[in-house]
Each structure stands twice: as structure tokens, then as C-alpha cells.
């Protein structure tokens, strides 16, 4: 393979997985778009809220409904305009713009009038684009009279063509900008009625025959950016939506803060008024696999020797293989040396066993505080029981195997299709980022040769750690309480890291927690954690079972599994512990080291030189205020 050819193939591969929003390029849309499992629900006529965190694919899904994107998608399936049942328009609620409609001594009712005018203008701007597109598709022109009616509903006179309407809208937005920047000075705007021009426009498209029997989906993205009064306004449109107009809303979890409508008595309700699509509940694994495999197929089509099944692409280690790689052999040798001296019969029994079983005696010995010889005898007499025990605890023991081995670069592997899917936890962006980083690591020093490209467990692990670190660092900048959240994640991750490596107490797979302590402190912390859930620092689920009376809050939190490799903890949801809210809040102060020690009930923390390199980067935080 020539150097140029190889570089070209690497570029193709990195672009396929590296550009997480590849779907957005219209030329690629049809070829790379994978229909999410919820697409049928999304394309139903009823208004709906598409709910998911950043990176779950909301925007891409809404974008796929836009009239031109959907048409491109249909074309790639051999279908045509006549098969298109809906026509989406997309309006993004940019925070910097919608937040301008507040303050200045003006009350929300008055701001509502300006905002609904703004929303009408933005939406009609998109409807103009749709009209031009429809005119080309149907060879029907929108009559001048209809255009002038739409224009009149926006407060414009003497407008009878779409280009003129577009220009008038642009000018009106500029005038509205003057008004918003100087709200106490009346700019003499004629404000349009809530939703009236949008409905007028939709009806005009219908009566003039441009729509046919299609429905217009007004897709509103980033709904969480709207202020509460603005949500009430849009909620009213949603509640009273009628064909040929419907609404499709993209919103972050907990982003629908206000269910009121303009008529305060009349709340927006599901399922009466709209359907809810919670992306996390919609078959993520199937969808993510399909996205990855379509891209693998594309790479193969481009001449790269690559498997098209994800599970073939990602190397997965068995527990036994991983135990050996992590150093179970050396531990097993020490166990055997010990038994050879003290119990030759037990020695000959275990000498025949693989190292991936024998090392477990040492783990269990530390866990139970019992001598190896005694456990070895017990094993010989109750082998079935021990094999069950290995089955139950082998995964947990993997976190301990490398403890004290300072030279080792990887102390726990995170590899294979199932692990990467679990770490992504419903987030397609995380999943593609994991794949892209793994490919980057794999190809960093090596070549894209003629052999089948397969991503090693090592590269997947290095990638998982790097993605976790990136997400951790980004957290600070994303959330309202980003600075606090990063400190909380670092502290909680460190607590779980220390527990994972300690066999005592057998709680290595603790990655969930409930809050305990005073109600006041719990409430203070809950505010941060709720922000953390919205920004994927944590996941939350209702608590399954109370363990102590001091657990006051019902929610069970889990560190987002994308951080698992960074903190070298389990990515599986297994067990929880109670964390004292006061101690957790203390990590936000000047002495986080002391607070973490308190969270570990005074148990000693790993010395700095034994920390994995990615955690050692935060030693200034971990040693802050000393331990």
C-alpha cells in the first residue's frame, strides 16, 4: 500500500468515527444516517418531546425531520417526494438570544408578547425556505394573496412574494433587536399574535396545494434554553396543535421545567397533549451498534480491510485472559510457593490448576483475613462452592490484582462491544468518541496494513481513559455548577477507586450511592447532583431498598459509567453505599483530601506514587488540605 493511499485510508476511518456529527453534512446524511428505534414515534402526527442528555442524538433526529434532510434520506432508500409524509422545519432556541427577552424592568407578560413575535418571525423564516423548496418540488406557486395574508399577520403590508417576505422578516428582527436592547423605549413595533402567522402560513401552504396531505413538523431544539414564561408560551402552541401543524421538541432531561400554558389552569399533559420519547429507553445498544456497523461498512467499501461486525472489530478479553494479563500469574506463583512449603498435598492440587484460578486464593485470603492454607483445604473439599465464588467475585478481583504494581500502565481493561456500550450509557456521542479514540490509539504508532484491522483491548482501554478524562475536564465548563461538579466527581471517583482496590469488605463494585446525613446538607447537595444528572456527571434512579434510617433522600446516584476507566472502577451497576452529605460538601472547600478520607471512614488512601497517572494529575486536589 503506498504511503499516500494509507494516509488517505486512515483519514477516511478517522472522519467516519471522528466526526460524531457526520450525519449533519447533507451530502452524507442519507448514507450515514441510521434510523433510531424511536423514529416511527417521532414521525407520528402527535406532538412529542424527545428527551435526552447532550450527545444522545436529539438534534440529529430533529434534523432528520427537516424537509430537505428527510427527502435526501428517502432518496437514499430509493423513495421520492411523493413518499414523504411530513415536512419538518427546525428552529433552535439559542440561549444567548432567547435570554435577551428578560429583565430591563419589563414583566414576563410583556416580554411574552415580544418573544412570541420573535418566535413567529423565526418560524416564518423557516417556512419561507420550505415554501421555496415545495414550489420547486410541486411546480405550484404560493399565491400572492396567501403571502400577503401571512405578511399581514406579521404586521407587514405590501408584501406579495416570498423573497420580499424574507427580507421583511430580516428587517423586523433587526427592529426587534433594537427594542430588546432598549426595552423601555418603544420602537413602535406591530407585534404579531401568538402563533397566528405560523398557523396562517401552514394553512396557506395547505389550501394552495403545496402540502398535499403532509404535516408540517415545527421542530424546536434546545427547549431547555427557554425561560419559564417562554416555555409556557410554546406549551400553549403544543397543546392546541392541529393539522397541518404539529410540534416536535428536543429537550434535555429535566429541561421541561414548566408545564403551564398561557391559560395557567390548563397544564400541558402527557399522553393527552403530547408523547414523550425518552431516548435512553429506546434500544440504545441496537441503535449504537447499527451506527457503528454502517460506518464500518463504509470503511470497507472504501477499501479498508476491516470487519463489519462491531464485536469482531473490538477485541474482548475473557475474565481469565484479563486476570493473566494483569498479573495473576505472579500472584499464583507466590501462592504455590507458599503451599509447596506448608502443604504439599494442596500444592499438587493447585499446581494443576490454571493461574487464573489459583491467584484467587490470595484475593480471598485478604478479603476474609484467613490463611491461604486453610482456604486451600476448604477449596479442595468444596470445589463447586469455590467455582461459584470465583464466578461471583472474579470480576471484582480484577481491580485488585495490580495493586502495588507501580510499573504497570494498565491496571484494568475496558474492552469489547458490551463494555463500550455500557460505558456510553445511552449516549451515541460518547460511544463514537470511544471508538474514534480507540482507532486513534491503535493507529498512532502502527500502520494500517493489509491485515484485518481489529482494535486491541489495550487501545480500547487507553481510549476509555482518555474519553473519561476529557469528559471530566469538560464538565467544569458545561454545567451551571460545573466547578463544584468536577470536584464532586473527582472525590466520589476516588472513594470508589480506593474501595475497588481493597478486597476487605468485598464491596469492589460499588459505584452508586445514596445521600445520608442532615436534611439541610442533603438538600444543598441534591441541587448540585441534579445539575450533574442533566450534564451526565451522574445518573439517578429511584432507590430500590432502604438500608439505613439515616438515608434521607430517595434517589440513588451513580457516577456516569463514562468515568469508569478514568477512575479504574466497575462500569457495572452493582452495589451502592451511603455517602455523608456534609463530607461530600466539604470536598468543595479548601481541604478535599481530608473530606475524601472522611468519606472512606478514615481508611488510608493510596500514596501518590501508587495512583494511576490519570489520577495523579489531580494530586494537587487530592492532597489539598492534606489527607
Amino acid at each position, binding site marked *: 500500500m503506498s504511503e499516500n493511499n494509507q494516509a488517505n485510508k486512515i483519514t477516511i476511518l478517522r472522519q467516519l468515527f471522528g466526526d460524531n456529527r457526520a450525519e449533519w453534512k447533507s451530502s452524507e446524511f442519507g448514507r450515514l444516517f441510521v434510523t433510531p428505534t424511536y423514529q416511527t414515534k417521532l414521525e407520528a402526527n402527535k406532538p412529542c418531546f424527545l428527551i435526552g442528555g447532550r450527545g444522545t442524538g436529539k438534534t440529529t433526529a430533529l434534523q432528520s425531520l427537516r424537509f430537505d434532510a428527510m427527502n435526501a434520506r428517502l432518496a437514499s432508500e430509493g423513495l421520492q417526494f411523493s413518499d414523504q409524509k411530513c415536512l419538518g422545519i427546525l428552529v433552535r432556541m*439559542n440561549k444567548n*438570544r432567547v435570554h435577551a427577552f428578560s*429583565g430591563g424592568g419589563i414583566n414576563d407578560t410583556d416580554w411574552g408578547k415580544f418573544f412570541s413575535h420573535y418566535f413567529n418571525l423565526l418560524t416564518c423564516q423557516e417556512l419561507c425556505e420550505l415554501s421555496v423548496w415545495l414550489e420547486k418540488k410541486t411546480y405550484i406557486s404560493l399565491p400572492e394573496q396567501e403571502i400577503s395574508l401571512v405578511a399581514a399577520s406579521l404586521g407587514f403590508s405590501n408584501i406579495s412574494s416570498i423573497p420580499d417576505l424574507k427580507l421583511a422578516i430580516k428587517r423586523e428582527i433587526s427592529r426587534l433587536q433594537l427594542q430588546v436592547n432598549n426595552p423601555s423605549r418603544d420602537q413602535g413595533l406591530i407585534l404579531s399574535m401568538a402563533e397566528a402567522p405560523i398557523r396562517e402560513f401552514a394553512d396557506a401552504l395547505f389550501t394552495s396545494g403545496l402540502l398535499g396531505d403532509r404535516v408540517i413538523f415545527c421542530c424546536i431544539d*434546545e427547549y431547555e434554553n427557554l425561560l419559564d414564561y417562554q416555555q409556557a408560551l410554546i406549551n400553549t402552541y403544543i397543546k392546541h396543535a392541529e393539522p397541518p401543524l404539529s410540534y416536535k421538541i428536543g429537550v434535555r432531561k429535566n429541561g421541561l421545567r414548566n408545564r403551564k400554558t398561557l391559560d395557567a389552569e390548563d397544564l400541558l399533559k402527557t399522553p393527552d397533549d403530547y408523547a414523550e420519547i425518552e431516548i435512553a429507553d429506546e434500544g440504545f445498544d441496537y441503535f449504537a451498534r447499527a451506527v457503528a456497523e454502517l460506518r464500518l461498512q463504509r470503511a470497507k467499501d472504501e477499501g479498508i480491510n476491516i470487519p463489519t461486525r462491531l464485536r469482531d472489530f473490538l477485541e474482548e478479553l475473557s475474565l481469565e485472559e484479563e486476570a493473566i494479563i494483569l498479573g495473576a500469574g505472579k500472584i499464583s506463583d507466590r501462592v504455590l510457593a507458599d503451599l509447596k512449603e506448608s502443604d504439599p498435598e494442596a500444592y499438587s492440587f493447585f499446581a494443576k490448576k490454571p493461574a487464573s484460578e489459583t491467584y484467587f486464593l490470595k484475593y480471598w485470603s485478604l478479603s476474609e483475613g484467613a490463611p491461604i492454607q486453610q482456604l486451600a483445604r476448604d477449596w479442595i473439599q468444596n470445589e463447586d462452592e469455590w467455582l461459584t465464588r470465583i464466578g461471583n467475585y472474579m470480576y471484582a478481583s480484577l481491580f485488585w490484582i495490580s495493586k502495588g504494581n507501580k510499573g504497570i500502565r494498565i491496571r484494568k481493561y475496558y474492552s469489547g462491544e458490551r463494555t463500550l456500550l455500557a460505558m456510553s450509557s445511552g449516549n451515541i456521542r460518547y460511544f463514537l468518541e470511544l471508538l474514534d479514540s480507540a482507532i486513534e490509539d491503535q493507529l498512532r504508532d502502527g500502520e494500517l496494513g493489509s491485515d484485518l484491522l481489529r482494535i486491541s483491548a489495550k487501545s480500547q482501554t487507553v481510549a476509555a481513559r482518555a474519553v473519561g478524562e*476529557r469528559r471530566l475536564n469538560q464538565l467544569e465548563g458545561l454545567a*451551571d455548577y460545573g466547578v463544584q461538579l468536577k470536584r464532586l466527581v473527582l472525590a466520589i471517583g476516588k472513594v470508589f477507586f480506593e474501595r475497588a482496590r481493597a478486597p476487605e469488605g468485598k464491596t469492589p463494585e460499588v459505584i452508586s450511592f445514596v445521600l445520608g446525613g442532615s436534611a439541610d446538607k442533603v438538600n444543598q447537595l441534591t441541587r448540585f447532583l441534579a445539575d450533574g444528572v442533566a450534564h451526565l456527571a451522574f445518573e439517578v434512579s429511584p432507590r430500590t431498598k432502604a438500608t439505613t434510617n439515616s438515608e434521607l433522600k430517595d434517589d440513588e446516584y451513580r457516577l456516569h459509567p463514562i468515568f469508569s476507566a478514568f477512575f479504574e472502577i466497575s462500569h457495572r451497576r452493582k452495589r451502592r453505599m451511603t455517602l455523608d452529605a456534609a463530607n461530600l460538601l466539604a470536598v468543595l472547600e479548601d481541604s478535599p483530601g481530608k473530606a475524601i478520607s472522611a468519606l472512606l471512614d478514615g481508611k488510608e488512601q493510596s500514596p501518590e506514587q501508587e495512583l494511576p497517572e490519570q489520577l495523579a494529575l489531580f494530586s494537587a*486536589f487530592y492532597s489539598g*488540605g492534606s489527607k
Partner: protein
Amino acid sequence: MGEAEPQTTTLRYFDLLPAHIHPEEVIVASSDSTEARGRMALWQELAAKDPAKVVWVKHLSRESIEVVHGTSTRQISLRNSTEIEELLNRDQYLLDISGLSHCVWAPFVKSLFDRRVSTRVLYAEPRSYKSHPSPASSSVFDLSITVEGATPLPGFARLAEPSDESKCLFVAMLGFEGNRPERLLLDIEPIPKVIPVIGVPGFRIEYPAFTVGCNRTFLTSYNCSSELRLARASCPYEVIQELADIRKSYPDYYLYLALVGTKPHALGATIYSLSNPENTEILFDHPVRKKGRTDGVELIHVYNFNNFDEFRV
């Protein structure tokens, strides 16, 4: 100073003296700054002799201030251009922005710019920034409690969407708080190309390296190190020039200007935006500053913008 003084220029002082203030100039300064550099002793001295010489500004909220001028005290809405015009109704102003937040000085600069009022702006460098006792990020300084989030600076709201969303740039004036630019960037869809601007030379020789370190994640995440632009940390003119150069390279692009670096950079970007309102948008996240975030006063810069005509397009 004197006849040889160019039209627009920066004068730098270690000790600001009464002789450095123009006789007709009215000073606008903070009355409640918690930083030493925001409480210039000279202003007290001048106000003692002539109370009308200094307009004292106290921050009340993101949109309102209390102003003491001479014997009068009044509240002013920063979203009310008439009230600002009535406050700044003299012919010459010296704005001391060292102790004023962006949401105060930016609408003042806008008002003076729009009315072509002769303006000088003063900025005092701090001697040092407060170190963080237990940093959890590459930011070694402890400057803000939190950020209130993206909301337009008073008078700087833009409602029009860029005509082509694929032709947008995010120009970030970077500082020591590496967590701030990304949040502003992620409010934009689709994410535009990023051009970082770093203060070189910095207030101190090591500051540019600190800035890069503090923004390491941002620079690598958006793969923008190759687009790095440099402008003296204390010079608004160099930022204006850099932005003009960026505009030349990307003539039909819409520029989002993220003010997350030094105040002189923010000042330069603001003036550039005032000159190019159709294709620029200021982004600001309103950090809540920690008390005593800086210590001492170092070099004092006085920028003369005259009536801003040199900066109009």
C-alpha cells in the same frame, strides 16, 4: 502627553498623577470594587477637590447600577440607553474599567461610541492573582465562584441568526479560566470553527504559558492550536487588529466573540463588535468574581480612543 501625542495611543504609568488626567475629563470608576486596582487613590483625591470630577458606580445587579456624581445619587438601568446618555453627558470621559464588570463598562463604551464622545479607558494590571488552595483543574488561580451563564451584555443582544450557519467562527479571547469558553461554544449549533486569541506578551512573562495550560483541554478538544492568534494581553488595539485580520481571512463569516480573557482584550473585541454589528456577536457568561481575587496594582494603561472614528467601518 502633549502635542506629539498620536491620535490613538496607549500611555502606561506606574504612578498615576493628577497631571495625567485631562482637565475637562470626567472619570467613571467603581465605588465598590473588592480589588486594590479597582480603588485608585487618585480618584478619591480628585473627587475631594471637585466632586463632579468622578462618577462613582456601584454594581447592583447585572442590569442596574447606583451612581453617585457630585451630590446626586441615582439608580440607572444598563438596558436604558437614555439613562446612560443622561449620565454620560459631558464631552470627555476617562473610564476606569479595572473595577467595573463587563456588564457595566460595555454599555458605557457603547453609548460613548454611538455618540462619538471623546473617551479614554484606563486599565490597571493586578500585581498577582489569587492561587487556588486545591485546584481540581489546570487553572491554578482562584478567580470566580461560579458563572451565571450566557446572557447578552446590556445593549449587545443579537437576535438575527447568522445567514449561513456553516460560516461562523468562534473567536475566544482566552484567559486563565479554561472552563469558560467551551460552555459558550456549546450553546452554538452547529459548533463553529474555533480561533483562540492568547495574550502575548502577557502581564507577566509566564502568563501566556499559564493561559495555554489552563486551556489545554479546550485547545485540544477543538483542535484549534494551529489557529492560535496572539495579541498583547494589555492591548485592545492589537485585538481589534487581530479581529480585522481574521475578518480578512474569513470575509463572509459571522464572528462570535467570547470574552473570557483579559479586560483589555474584551474592550478591543467590544469596540470591534460595535464597528461591525451585522456580523459579530458578543458572548459573555457573567462570572461571579471571588473577593480578593487579585492583589496590588502593577502597570496602569490608559487607552485613548478619541471619538472612536478610527474604528468605524
